[in-house]
C-alpha cells in the first residue's frame, strides 16, 4: 500500500509497516505492508510481533503536531 492508501485505511492511527520501499532522495516512505495498527504506539507493535532482524517503520497517519504545545 502507498502512504496515501494507508492513511485512508487507518485514519489517525499508529501503523507498523514492513516490506518497506523508501524514496532514496527524500528518505520518505513510498509503500509497504501494514503489519499492525492502533491508537497507541504499542498496539501495532504487539500485532506486528518481533522484528527478527528485519527493518520496519512505525508512523502516525494523522496530523502531526509539536509535543511542546502550551496549554
Amino acid at each position, binding site marked *: 500500500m502507498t502512504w496515501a492508501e494507508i492513511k485512508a485505511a487507518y485514519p489517525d492511527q499508529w501503523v507498523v509497516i514492513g516490506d518497506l520501499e523508501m524514496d532514496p532522495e527524500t528518505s520518505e516512505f513510498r509503500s509497504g505492508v501494514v503489519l499492525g495498527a492502533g491508537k*497507541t504506539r*504499542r498496539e501495532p507493535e504487539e500485532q506486528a510481533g518481533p*522484528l*527478527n532482524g528485519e527493518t520496519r517503520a512505525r508512523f502516525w497517519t494523522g496530523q502531526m503536531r509539536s*509535543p511542546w504545545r502550551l496549554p
Partner: protein
Amino acid sequence: MAATVTAFDPSADLIYLVAELSGPLGAQKYRFVLDTACAETLITPESVDKLGYSARHGDSITAVTTALDREPGYRLRVSRFEALGYAVTDFRVHVHDLPEESGIDGLIGLNFLRAFNYEIRSKEGRILVSRA
C-alpha cells in the same frame, strides 16, 4: 565534499524527518522532528523497547522539564542512528515519553547535528548536510 539533500514539507509547523534506529533485534524507522534547540536527541520508550533495549541498558537517569511538568527518563547508547543521509554508531539518546497525539517518536538534537555542517533552506523545504 558534496552535501546530501533531504526534503521536508516547508508548509508544516515543524521540520518532520524519518530517522532509523538499530538495536539487538533489528532496525526500525520513526518520524522525528529536527530540533536545534534540543541539546541531545530524544526518543520514546516504545521505540527503543522494540529494538531490544530497556531501562536496564541505560547509563543514567534523566529528566526533561516541560511547561507542565518534570518527566523522568534515562540515557542510552543505541548501536546505530541514521538521519539526513548519515549514520552514526554507538549513539547516545535520551529516552523520554512524548504525547501519542504528537505523531512523532523523537527529536533530532544537536548531539547528532554537531558532527555536520548543515543548511536549512526553510522556504525550499530542503536540508543540505555535509561532514564537518
